[in-house]
Protein backbone atom coordinates (compact mmCIF):
# COMPACT_ATOMS: atom_id res chain seq x y z
CA UNK A 1 0.00 0.00 0.00
CA UNK A 2 1.60 3.24 -1.13
CA UNK A 3 1.09 6.37 0.95
CA UNK A 4 1.13 9.28 -1.49
CA UNK A 5 0.21 12.94 -1.17
CA UNK A 6 -3.30 12.35 -2.46
CA UNK A 7 -4.01 9.86 0.33
CA UNK A 8 -2.53 12.17 2.97
CA UNK A 9 -4.72 14.99 1.64
CA UNK A 10 -7.83 12.83 1.82
CA UNK A 11 -7.13 11.56 5.34
CA UNK A 12 -6.16 15.03 6.60
CA UNK A 13 -9.46 16.37 5.36
CA UNK A 14 -11.43 13.56 7.04
CA UNK A 15 -9.49 13.86 10.31
CA UNK A 16 -9.34 17.68 10.30
CA UNK A 17 -5.58 17.67 10.69
CA UNK A 18 -2.92 19.34 8.60
CA UNK A 19 0.67 18.34 7.96
CA UNK A 20 3.04 20.81 6.38
CA UNK A 21 6.70 20.72 5.39
CA UNK A 22 8.79 18.24 7.36
CA UNK A 23 5.75 17.04 9.30
CA UNK A 24 4.19 15.91 6.04
CA UNK A 25 7.16 13.78 5.05
CA UNK A 26 7.25 12.34 8.55
CA UNK A 27 3.58 11.31 8.59
CA UNK A 28 3.98 9.76 5.16
CA UNK A 29 6.82 7.53 6.26
CA UNK A 30 5.24 6.77 9.68
CA UNK A 31 1.90 5.80 8.15
CA UNK A 32 3.53 3.60 5.59
CA UNK A 33 5.52 1.87 8.34
CA UNK A 34 2.40 1.44 10.51
CA UNK A 35 0.39 0.06 7.61
CA UNK A 36 3.10 -2.36 6.65
CA UNK A 37 3.04 -3.58 10.23
CA UNK A 38 -0.72 -4.30 10.28
CA UNK A 39 -0.66 -5.70 6.73
CA UNK A 40 0.19 -9.16 8.13
CA UNK A 41 -3.36 -9.58 9.43
CA UNK A 42 -4.35 -10.30 5.84
CA UNK A 43 -2.55 -13.64 6.05
CA UNK A 44 -4.91 -14.90 8.76
CA UNK A 45 -7.79 -17.06 7.57
CA UNK A 46 -11.01 -15.48 8.84
CA UNK A 47 -13.37 -17.25 6.47
CA UNK A 48 -16.76 -17.57 8.19
CA UNK A 49 -15.66 -15.60 11.29
CA UNK A 50 -18.00 -12.85 12.47
CA UNK A 51 -16.45 -9.54 13.52
CA UNK A 52 -16.27 -9.16 17.31
CA UNK A 53 -18.08 -5.93 18.09
CA UNK A 54 -19.51 -6.24 21.61
CA UNK A 55 -17.32 -7.55 24.39
CA UNK A 56 -20.08 -8.43 26.81
CA UNK A 57 -23.24 -10.45 26.46
CA UNK A 58 -25.15 -8.06 28.66
CA UNK A 59 -26.32 -5.59 26.05
CA UNK A 60 -29.91 -4.64 25.71
CA UNK A 61 -30.41 -3.64 29.32
CA UNK A 62 -32.78 -0.73 28.89
CA UNK A 63 -33.54 2.06 31.29
CA UNK A 64 -36.46 4.41 31.47
CA UNK A 65 -36.30 7.24 28.96
CA UNK A 66 -36.40 10.08 31.43
CA UNK A 67 -35.01 13.54 30.75
CA UNK A 68 -32.41 14.54 33.31
CA UNK A 69 -30.58 17.80 33.62
CA UNK A 70 -27.07 16.65 34.35
CA UNK A 71 -25.19 19.76 33.34
CA UNK A 72 -26.39 23.33 33.78
CA UNK A 73 -26.01 25.84 30.97
CA UNK A 74 -23.51 27.80 33.01
CA UNK A 75 -21.36 24.73 33.67
CA UNK A 76 -21.52 23.68 30.03
CA UNK A 77 -20.30 27.09 28.86
CA UNK A 78 -17.61 27.46 31.52
CA UNK A 79 -14.89 25.70 29.53
CA UNK A 80 -15.70 27.29 26.18
CA UNK A 81 -12.85 29.16 24.47
CA UNK A 82 -15.43 31.75 23.44
CA UNK A 83 -19.04 32.17 24.63
CA UNK A 84 -21.63 34.67 25.70
CA UNK A 85 -24.17 34.05 28.44
CA UNK A 86 -26.26 31.65 26.35
CA UNK A 87 -24.25 30.33 23.44
CA UNK A 88 -20.87 29.03 22.29
CA UNK A 89 -19.35 31.55 19.91
CA UNK A 90 -17.75 30.30 16.71
CA UNK A 91 -16.02 32.05 13.81
CA UNK A 92 -18.18 32.98 10.82
CA UNK A 93 -19.63 29.93 9.07
CA UNK A 94 -21.18 31.68 6.04
CA UNK A 95 -19.31 34.31 4.11
CA UNK A 96 -21.03 37.27 2.46
CA UNK A 97 -22.57 36.31 -0.87
CA UNK A 98 -22.76 32.60 -0.06
Amino acid at each position, binding site marked *: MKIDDALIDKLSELA*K*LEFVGEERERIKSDLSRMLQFVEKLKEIDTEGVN*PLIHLTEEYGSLREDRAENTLSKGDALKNAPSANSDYFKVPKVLKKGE
Partner: protein
Amino acid sequence: MREIREALLREDYSLTDLVKHYQSKIAERSHLAAFREVFTDDSLERASEVQSKIKAGTAGKLAGMVLAIKDNICYRDHEVGAASKILEGFISPYHATIVERLLAEDVIIIGRTSCDEFAMGSSNENSAYGPVLNPLDEALVPGGSSGGSAAAVAAGMCLASLGSDTGGSIRQPASFCGLVGLKPTYGRVSRYGLLAYASSMDQIGPFASKSEDAALLLEVMAGKDSKDNTSSNHRVDEYSEEGKARTYELAYYKEIVEHPGLDPQLKADFLAQLEILRSQGHKVEELSFPYLNDLVPTYNVLSNAEASSNLSRYDGIRYGYRSENAGDIDTTYTKSRSEGFGPEVKRRIMLGTFVLSSGYYDAYYSKAQKVRRLIRDATINALSDCDFILSPTTPHSAFKIGDIQDPVQMYLEDIFTVQANLAGVPSVSIPKFKSASGMPIGLQITAGPFEEKKMLQFARSLED
Protein backbone atom coordinates in the same frame (compact mmCIF):
# COMPACT_ATOMS: atom_id res chain seq x y z
CA MET B 1 -3.21 0.46 54.06
CA ARG B 2 -3.90 -1.88 56.97
CA GLU B 3 -0.92 -0.49 58.95
CA ILE B 4 -1.89 3.10 58.17
CA ARG B 5 -5.44 2.51 59.28
CA GLU B 6 -4.25 1.02 62.58
CA ALA B 7 -1.76 3.84 63.13
CA LEU B 8 -4.48 6.43 62.52
CA LEU B 9 -6.78 4.69 65.00
CA ARG B 10 -3.98 4.56 67.58
CA GLU B 11 -3.33 8.25 66.84
CA ASP B 12 0.36 7.63 66.15
CA TYR B 13 -0.05 10.41 63.60
CA SER B 14 -2.96 12.24 62.02
CA LEU B 15 -4.27 12.08 58.49
CA THR B 16 -3.08 15.65 58.05
CA ASP B 17 0.45 14.56 59.01
CA LEU B 18 0.18 11.77 56.49
CA VAL B 19 -0.96 14.02 53.62
CA LYS B 20 1.78 16.53 54.49
CA HIS B 21 4.32 13.71 54.46
CA TYR B 22 3.28 12.70 50.94
CA GLN B 23 3.24 16.33 49.80
CA SER B 24 6.81 16.80 50.98
CA LYS B 25 7.84 13.62 49.13
CA ILE B 26 6.27 15.05 45.96
CA ALA B 27 8.08 18.36 46.42
CA GLU B 28 11.44 16.67 47.14
CA ARG B 29 11.43 14.87 43.80
CA SER B 30 9.32 17.16 41.67
CA HIS B 31 11.91 16.75 38.87
CA LEU B 32 10.49 13.24 38.28
CA ALA B 33 7.46 15.06 36.81
CA ALA B 34 5.13 12.36 38.15
CA PHE B 35 2.40 14.87 38.95
CA ARG B 36 0.70 17.31 36.62
CA GLU B 37 -0.86 19.01 39.62
CA VAL B 38 -0.94 18.54 43.38
CA PHE B 39 -4.25 19.33 45.04
CA THR B 40 -2.38 20.82 47.97
CA ASP B 41 -5.09 22.71 49.83
CA ASP B 42 -8.12 20.60 49.21
CA SER B 43 -6.35 17.33 50.05
CA LEU B 44 -5.46 18.87 53.43
CA GLU B 45 -9.02 20.06 53.90
CA ARG B 46 -10.32 16.58 53.19
CA ALA B 47 -7.74 15.13 55.55
CA SER B 48 -9.18 17.03 58.47
CA GLU B 49 -12.73 16.11 57.45
CA VAL B 50 -11.91 12.41 57.25
CA GLN B 51 -9.87 12.64 60.45
CA SER B 52 -12.95 13.76 62.36
CA LYS B 53 -14.94 10.90 60.85
CA ILE B 54 -12.27 8.48 62.06
CA LYS B 55 -12.58 9.96 65.56
CA ALA B 56 -16.37 9.69 65.42
CA GLY B 57 -16.16 6.11 64.17
CA THR B 58 -18.08 6.92 60.99
CA ALA B 59 -15.22 6.72 58.49
CA GLY B 60 -15.56 4.79 55.22
CA LYS B 61 -13.49 1.75 54.30
CA LEU B 62 -10.89 3.85 52.46
CA ALA B 63 -10.25 6.38 55.22
CA GLY B 64 -6.47 6.67 55.32
CA MET B 65 -6.01 5.93 51.63
CA VAL B 66 -4.15 8.79 49.93
CA LEU B 67 -4.56 8.33 46.22
CA ALA B 68 -3.27 9.95 43.01
CA ILE B 69 -5.36 9.78 39.84
CA LYS B 70 -4.24 9.70 36.23
CA ASP B 71 -4.77 12.91 34.31
CA ASN B 72 -7.59 11.35 32.29
CA ILE B 73 -10.08 10.79 35.12
CA CYS B 74 -12.65 13.48 35.87
CA TYR B 75 -12.69 14.96 39.38
CA ARG B 76 -15.32 17.68 39.65
CA ASP B 77 -14.02 21.27 39.81
CA HIS B 78 -10.47 20.07 39.14
CA GLU B 79 -8.45 20.30 35.96
CA VAL B 80 -8.13 17.22 33.78
CA GLY B 81 -6.10 17.24 30.58
CA ALA B 82 -4.87 13.80 29.44
CA ALA B 83 -1.42 15.47 29.37
CA SER B 84 -2.47 17.21 26.14
CA LYS B 85 -2.22 20.83 25.13
CA ILE B 86 -5.65 20.56 23.56
CA LEU B 87 -7.28 20.34 27.01
CA GLU B 88 -5.08 22.80 28.86
CA GLY B 89 -7.13 24.65 31.44
CA PHE B 90 -10.16 22.35 31.16
CA ILE B 91 -11.99 22.00 34.48
CA SER B 92 -14.21 18.97 34.85
CA PRO B 93 -17.82 19.89 35.63
CA TYR B 94 -18.57 16.39 36.92
CA HIS B 95 -17.13 13.38 38.75
CA ALA B 96 -16.20 10.12 37.12
CA THR B 97 -18.41 7.43 38.68
CA ILE B 98 -15.39 5.78 40.31
CA VAL B 99 -14.29 9.10 41.84
CA GLU B 100 -17.74 9.46 43.36
CA ARG B 101 -17.55 5.92 44.78
CA LEU B 102 -14.04 6.38 46.15
CA LEU B 103 -14.83 9.73 47.78
CA ALA B 104 -17.92 8.19 49.39
CA GLU B 105 -15.55 5.76 51.14
CA ASP B 106 -13.33 8.65 52.28
CA VAL B 107 -10.39 8.39 49.94
CA ILE B 108 -8.17 11.49 49.73
CA ILE B 109 -7.13 12.48 46.20
CA ILE B 110 -3.75 14.17 46.44
CA GLY B 111 -3.27 15.12 42.80
CA ARG B 112 -3.36 14.15 39.15
CA THR B 113 -0.49 12.34 37.52
CA SER B 114 1.19 12.72 34.17
CA CYS B 115 0.71 10.19 31.40
CA ASP B 116 1.24 9.76 27.69
CA GLU B 117 -1.01 12.15 25.79
CA PHE B 118 -4.52 10.64 25.71
CA ALA B 119 -3.01 7.45 27.18
CA MET B 120 -1.20 6.72 23.92
CA GLY B 121 2.27 5.40 24.60
CA SER B 122 4.42 2.91 26.47
CA SER B 123 7.07 5.17 28.00
CA ASN B 124 5.39 8.36 29.19
CA GLU B 125 7.54 10.27 26.69
CA ASN B 126 4.42 11.41 24.79
CA SER B 127 3.18 13.78 27.49
CA ALA B 128 2.91 17.34 26.14
CA TYR B 129 4.64 18.37 29.37
CA GLY B 130 7.79 16.28 29.03
CA PRO B 131 8.78 12.78 30.08
CA VAL B 132 8.31 11.27 33.55
CA LEU B 133 11.46 9.75 35.10
CA ASN B 134 11.55 6.31 36.69
CA PRO B 135 12.10 6.90 40.42
CA LEU B 136 14.22 3.72 40.70
CA ASP B 137 16.66 4.93 38.02
CA GLU B 138 16.08 8.41 36.69
CA ALA B 139 17.73 7.76 33.32
CA LEU B 140 14.98 5.25 32.54
CA VAL B 141 11.33 5.54 31.55
CA PRO B 142 8.66 4.57 34.11
CA GLY B 143 6.63 2.88 31.37
CA GLY B 144 3.36 4.14 29.98
CA SER B 145 0.88 5.31 29.44
CA SER B 146 0.12 5.55 33.19
CA GLY B 147 3.78 6.33 33.96
CA GLY B 148 3.13 9.20 36.36
CA SER B 149 0.75 7.07 38.44
CA ALA B 150 3.36 4.31 38.70
CA ALA B 151 6.21 6.71 39.48
CA ALA B 152 4.14 8.42 42.20
CA VAL B 153 3.57 5.17 44.12
CA ALA B 154 7.10 3.87 43.55
CA ALA B 155 8.53 7.16 44.91
CA GLY B 156 6.33 7.00 48.01
CA MET B 157 4.35 10.12 47.03
CA CYS B 158 1.00 8.44 47.76
CA LEU B 159 -0.16 5.04 48.96
CA ALA B 160 -1.83 4.02 45.70
CA SER B 161 -2.90 5.49 42.39
CA LEU B 162 -5.24 4.95 39.48
CA GLY B 163 -4.34 4.45 35.86
CA SER B 164 -6.14 3.28 32.76
CA ASP B 165 -5.17 0.23 30.72
CA THR B 166 -6.08 -0.03 27.03
CA GLY B 167 -3.19 -2.20 25.83
CA GLY B 168 -1.04 -2.57 28.94
CA SER B 169 -0.91 0.99 30.27
CA ILE B 170 -1.22 -0.10 33.91
CA ARG B 171 0.61 -3.44 33.88
CA GLN B 172 3.66 -2.32 31.88
CA PRO B 173 4.52 0.66 34.14
CA ALA B 174 3.81 -1.53 37.18
CA SER B 175 6.39 -3.97 35.80
CA PHE B 176 8.96 -1.18 35.22
CA CYS B 177 8.43 0.41 38.66
CA GLY B 178 8.13 -2.70 40.85
CA LEU B 179 4.43 -2.40 41.71
CA VAL B 180 1.17 -4.29 41.59
CA GLY B 181 -0.89 -3.06 38.62
CA LEU B 182 -4.37 -4.37 37.89
CA LYS B 183 -6.49 -4.29 34.75
CA PRO B 184 -10.00 -5.51 35.54
CA THR B 185 -12.34 -7.45 33.25
CA TYR B 186 -13.84 -5.24 30.54
CA GLY B 187 -17.05 -3.85 32.03
CA ARG B 188 -16.04 -4.50 35.65
CA VAL B 189 -15.35 -0.81 36.33
CA SER B 190 -17.42 2.07 34.94
CA ARG B 191 -15.71 4.19 32.30
CA TYR B 192 -18.00 7.17 32.89
CA GLY B 193 -15.70 10.15 33.39
CA LEU B 194 -12.64 8.49 31.88
CA LEU B 195 -11.43 10.46 28.85
CA ALA B 196 -11.95 7.89 26.11
CA TYR B 197 -9.14 6.46 23.99
CA ALA B 198 -10.37 3.06 22.73
CA SER B 199 -13.75 2.41 24.29
CA SER B 200 -13.89 -1.33 23.63
CA MET B 201 -10.67 -1.86 25.61
CA ASP B 202 -10.23 0.99 28.14
CA GLN B 203 -10.45 0.01 31.82
CA ILE B 204 -9.54 1.96 34.93
CA GLY B 205 -7.47 0.11 37.51
CA PRO B 206 -5.20 0.61 40.54
CA PHE B 207 -1.46 0.66 41.26
CA ALA B 208 -0.31 -0.28 44.76
CA SER B 209 2.64 -1.82 46.55
CA LYS B 210 0.45 -4.65 47.81
CA SER B 211 -2.23 -6.68 46.03
CA GLU B 212 -4.47 -6.27 49.06
CA ASP B 213 -4.65 -2.50 48.52
CA ALA B 214 -5.30 -2.90 44.80
CA ALA B 215 -8.09 -5.36 45.66
CA LEU B 216 -9.62 -2.95 48.16
CA LEU B 217 -9.72 -0.18 45.56
CA LEU B 218 -11.30 -2.50 43.00
CA GLU B 219 -13.92 -3.52 45.55
CA VAL B 220 -15.05 0.08 45.89
CA MET B 221 -14.86 0.99 42.18
CA ALA B 222 -16.43 -2.11 40.65
CA GLY B 223 -20.07 -2.58 39.76
CA LYS B 224 -22.87 -1.57 37.44
CA ASP B 225 -23.20 2.08 36.57
CA SER B 226 -26.29 3.31 34.75
CA LYS B 227 -24.09 5.95 33.09
CA ASP B 228 -21.93 3.33 31.34
CA ASN B 229 -23.94 0.86 29.31
CA THR B 230 -20.93 -1.45 28.97
CA SER B 231 -20.55 -1.79 32.75
CA SER B 232 -21.50 -5.22 34.00
CA ASN B 233 -24.19 -6.43 36.39
CA HIS B 234 -21.91 -9.25 37.49
CA ARG B 235 -21.73 -9.59 41.28
CA VAL B 236 -18.97 -7.59 43.02
CA ASP B 237 -16.90 -9.91 45.19
CA GLU B 238 -14.90 -9.14 48.30
CA TYR B 239 -11.70 -8.93 46.31
CA SER B 240 -9.58 -8.01 49.33
CA GLU B 241 -10.46 -11.13 51.30
CA GLU B 242 -7.39 -13.29 51.89
CA GLY B 243 -8.02 -16.71 50.39
CA LYS B 244 -7.09 -20.08 51.89
CA ALA B 245 -3.85 -21.53 50.54
CA ARG B 246 -4.65 -23.80 47.61
CA THR B 247 -3.11 -25.11 44.43
CA TYR B 248 -4.06 -24.01 40.95
CA GLU B 249 -3.81 -25.13 37.36
CA LEU B 250 -1.44 -22.75 35.64
CA ALA B 251 -0.48 -22.38 32.01
CA TYR B 252 2.07 -20.45 29.97
CA TYR B 253 2.56 -19.97 26.25
CA LYS B 254 5.40 -21.66 24.42
CA GLU B 255 5.49 -18.74 21.94
CA ILE B 256 6.20 -16.27 24.74
CA VAL B 257 9.13 -18.15 26.28
CA GLU B 258 10.54 -18.69 22.79
CA HIS B 259 9.99 -15.08 21.72
CA PRO B 260 13.24 -13.60 20.33
CA GLY B 261 12.57 -10.27 22.05
CA LEU B 262 12.42 -11.86 25.52
CA ASP B 263 15.46 -11.04 27.66
CA PRO B 264 17.38 -14.37 28.12
CA GLN B 265 17.93 -13.79 31.83
CA LEU B 266 14.23 -13.05 32.28
CA LYS B 267 13.33 -16.20 30.37
CA ALA B 268 15.50 -18.28 32.71
CA ASP B 269 14.02 -16.58 35.77
CA PHE B 270 10.47 -17.08 34.51
CA LEU B 271 11.07 -20.79 33.86
CA ALA B 272 12.66 -21.10 37.31
CA GLN B 273 9.59 -19.44 38.82
CA LEU B 274 7.39 -22.04 37.11
CA GLU B 275 9.54 -24.76 38.72
CA ILE B 276 9.02 -23.18 42.13
CA LEU B 277 5.27 -23.15 41.54
CA ARG B 278 5.37 -26.80 40.48
CA SER B 279 7.27 -27.68 43.62
CA GLN B 280 4.55 -25.96 45.66
CA GLY B 281 1.99 -28.31 44.20
CA HIS B 282 0.55 -26.19 41.38
CA LYS B 283 0.03 -27.85 38.03
CA VAL B 284 1.91 -26.04 35.28
CA GLU B 285 1.17 -26.72 31.65
CA GLU B 286 2.66 -25.42 28.40
CA LEU B 287 0.14 -24.16 25.86
CA SER B 288 0.45 -22.93 22.31
CA PHE B 289 -0.99 -19.58 21.27
CA PRO B 290 -0.69 -19.11 17.52
CA TYR B 291 -1.65 -15.43 17.46
CA LEU B 292 1.16 -13.89 19.53
CA ASN B 293 2.57 -11.85 16.64
CA ASP B 294 -0.90 -10.78 15.48
CA LEU B 295 -1.88 -9.23 18.80
CA VAL B 296 -0.25 -5.83 18.42
CA PRO B 297 -1.31 -5.33 14.76
CA THR B 298 -4.92 -6.20 15.69
CA TYR B 299 -4.76 -3.88 18.66
CA ASN B 300 -3.31 -1.07 16.54
CA VAL B 301 -6.02 -1.21 13.89
CA LEU B 302 -8.87 -1.33 16.41
CA SER B 303 -7.55 1.09 19.03
CA ASN B 304 -6.55 3.66 16.42
CA ALA B 305 -9.93 3.41 14.70
CA GLU B 306 -11.70 3.97 18.01
CA ALA B 307 -9.33 6.81 18.88
CA SER B 308 -9.96 8.60 15.59
CA SER B 309 -13.66 8.51 16.37
CA ASN B 310 -13.38 9.35 20.10
CA LEU B 311 -10.97 12.24 19.57
CA SER B 312 -13.14 13.93 16.95
CA ARG B 313 -14.84 15.74 19.83
CA TYR B 314 -11.76 17.93 20.34
CA ASP B 315 -12.57 20.61 17.80
CA GLY B 316 -11.90 23.88 19.61
CA ILE B 317 -15.56 24.84 19.85
CA ARG B 318 -17.14 23.83 23.16
CA TYR B 319 -14.03 23.35 25.30
CA GLY B 320 -10.30 23.00 25.03
CA TYR B 321 -7.77 24.79 22.88
CA ARG B 322 -8.90 27.02 20.02
CA SER B 323 -6.33 28.27 17.54
CA GLU B 324 -5.98 32.01 17.06
CA ASN B 325 -4.63 31.38 13.57
CA ALA B 326 -7.92 30.48 11.95
CA GLY B 327 -10.34 32.62 9.99
CA ASP B 328 -13.40 30.48 9.43
CA ILE B 329 -15.05 27.50 11.08
CA ASP B 330 -13.32 24.84 9.04
CA THR B 331 -9.81 26.13 9.61
CA THR B 332 -10.71 26.57 13.30
CA TYR B 333 -11.23 22.81 13.52
CA THR B 334 -8.12 21.98 11.56
CA LYS B 335 -5.74 24.50 13.16
CA SER B 336 -6.98 23.84 16.71
CA ARG B 337 -6.51 20.09 16.31
CA SER B 338 -3.20 20.34 14.48
CA GLU B 339 -1.72 22.74 17.03
CA GLY B 340 -3.34 21.03 20.04
CA PHE B 341 -2.48 17.36 19.48
CA GLY B 342 1.04 15.91 19.70
CA PRO B 343 2.68 13.76 17.00
CA GLU B 344 1.76 10.31 18.38
CA VAL B 345 -1.90 11.24 18.77
CA LYS B 346 -1.96 12.56 15.18
CA ARG B 347 -0.33 9.39 13.87
CA ARG B 348 -2.97 7.23 15.53
CA ILE B 349 -5.85 9.40 14.37
CA MET B 350 -4.52 9.21 10.80
CA LEU B 351 -4.14 5.41 10.84
CA GLY B 352 -7.54 5.10 12.48
CA THR B 353 -9.11 7.36 9.86
CA PHE B 354 -7.50 5.29 7.13
CA VAL B 355 -8.75 1.92 8.37
CA LEU B 356 -12.26 3.30 8.76
CA SER B 357 -12.37 5.07 5.41
CA SER B 358 -14.47 3.71 2.58
CA GLY B 359 -12.56 1.31 0.40
CA TYR B 360 -10.33 0.13 3.27
CA TYR B 361 -12.88 -0.58 6.01
CA ASP B 362 -13.37 -4.27 5.17
CA ALA B 363 -9.73 -5.00 4.47
CA TYR B 364 -8.45 -3.48 7.71
CA TYR B 365 -11.06 -2.61 10.34
CA SER B 366 -13.52 -5.41 9.77
CA LYS B 367 -10.65 -7.85 9.28
CA ALA B 368 -9.13 -6.86 12.62
CA GLN B 369 -12.52 -7.35 14.33
CA LYS B 370 -12.63 -10.88 12.94
CA VAL B 371 -9.11 -11.60 14.10
CA ARG B 372 -10.11 -10.19 17.48
CA ARG B 373 -12.82 -12.82 17.71
CA LEU B 374 -10.28 -15.57 16.99
CA ILE B 375 -7.95 -14.13 19.65
CA ARG B 376 -10.74 -13.73 22.19
CA ASP B 377 -12.07 -17.25 21.62
CA ALA B 378 -8.60 -18.80 21.84
CA THR B 379 -7.93 -16.89 25.08
CA ILE B 380 -11.23 -17.82 26.72
CA ASN B 381 -10.73 -21.42 25.60
CA ALA B 382 -7.29 -21.60 27.18
CA LEU B 383 -8.64 -20.07 30.39
CA SER B 384 -11.50 -22.52 30.59
CA ASP B 385 -8.97 -25.34 30.93
CA CYS B 386 -6.83 -23.70 33.59
CA ASP B 387 -7.06 -21.10 36.36
CA PHE B 388 -4.44 -18.63 35.15
CA ILE B 389 -2.11 -17.90 32.29
CA LEU B 390 1.30 -16.67 33.43
CA SER B 391 3.93 -14.70 31.56
CA PRO B 392 6.51 -12.02 32.15
CA THR B 393 4.57 -8.72 31.95
CA THR B 394 7.15 -7.12 29.68
CA PRO B 395 9.91 -8.65 27.52
CA HIS B 396 12.56 -6.73 29.51
CA SER B 397 13.01 -4.14 32.25
CA ALA B 398 12.64 -0.35 31.84
CA PHE B 399 14.56 1.15 28.91
CA LYS B 400 16.41 4.45 28.64
CA ILE B 401 14.53 7.68 27.95
CA GLY B 402 14.94 8.43 24.24
CA ASP B 403 16.09 4.92 23.31
CA ILE B 404 13.04 3.88 21.29
CA GLN B 405 12.39 6.29 18.41
CA ASP B 406 10.58 4.03 15.96
CA PRO B 407 6.81 4.04 16.65
CA VAL B 408 6.35 0.39 15.62
CA GLN B 409 9.12 -0.74 17.96
CA MET B 410 7.36 1.17 20.73
CA TYR B 411 4.04 -0.54 19.92
CA LEU B 412 5.73 -3.92 20.28
CA GLU B 413 6.51 -3.08 23.92
CA ASP B 414 2.90 -4.15 24.60
CA ILE B 415 3.26 -7.61 23.06
CA PHE B 416 2.56 -9.56 26.28
CA THR B 417 -0.12 -7.25 27.68
CA VAL B 418 -2.56 -6.49 24.81
CA GLN B 419 -4.06 -9.97 24.76
CA ALA B 420 -6.05 -9.28 27.95
CA ASN B 421 -7.49 -6.08 26.44
CA LEU B 422 -8.44 -7.71 23.15
CA ALA B 423 -10.10 -10.60 25.02
CA GLY B 424 -11.61 -8.39 27.74
CA VAL B 425 -10.21 -10.54 30.57
CA PRO B 426 -8.64 -9.41 33.88
CA SER B 427 -4.90 -9.37 34.32
CA VAL B 428 -2.51 -8.26 37.05
CA SER B 429 1.21 -7.59 37.12
CA ILE B 430 3.08 -8.21 40.37
CA PRO B 431 6.77 -7.51 41.05
CA LYS B 432 8.69 -10.77 40.78
CA PHE B 433 11.85 -10.59 38.65
CA LYS B 434 14.96 -8.42 38.51
CA SER B 435 17.18 -7.45 35.59
CA ALA B 436 20.98 -7.78 35.78
CA SER B 437 21.11 -4.13 36.87
CA GLY B 438 18.52 -4.72 39.58
CA MET B 439 15.50 -3.15 37.87
CA PRO B 440 12.15 -4.83 38.53
CA ILE B 441 10.10 -6.82 36.01
CA GLY B 442 6.60 -8.08 36.64
CA LEU B 443 4.96 -11.47 36.56
CA GLN B 444 1.65 -11.22 34.73
CA ILE B 445 -1.31 -13.32 35.89
CA THR B 446 -4.32 -13.44 33.57
CA ALA B 447 -7.65 -15.00 34.54
CA GLY B 448 -11.06 -15.67 33.03
CA PRO B 449 -13.74 -12.95 32.92
CA PHE B 450 -14.79 -11.69 36.39
CA GLU B 451 -12.31 -13.95 38.20
CA GLU B 452 -10.58 -11.02 39.88
CA LYS B 453 -11.08 -12.44 43.36
CA LYS B 454 -9.31 -15.70 42.66
CA MET B 455 -6.64 -13.86 40.64
CA LEU B 456 -5.88 -11.37 43.40
CA GLN B 457 -5.79 -14.09 46.05
CA PHE B 458 -3.25 -15.99 43.98
CA ALA B 459 -1.26 -12.77 43.41
CA ARG B 460 -1.28 -12.16 47.16
CA SER B 461 0.01 -15.67 47.86
CA LEU B 462 3.01 -14.96 45.61
CA GLU B 463 3.99 -11.75 47.38
CA ASP B 464 7.20 -11.89 49.37
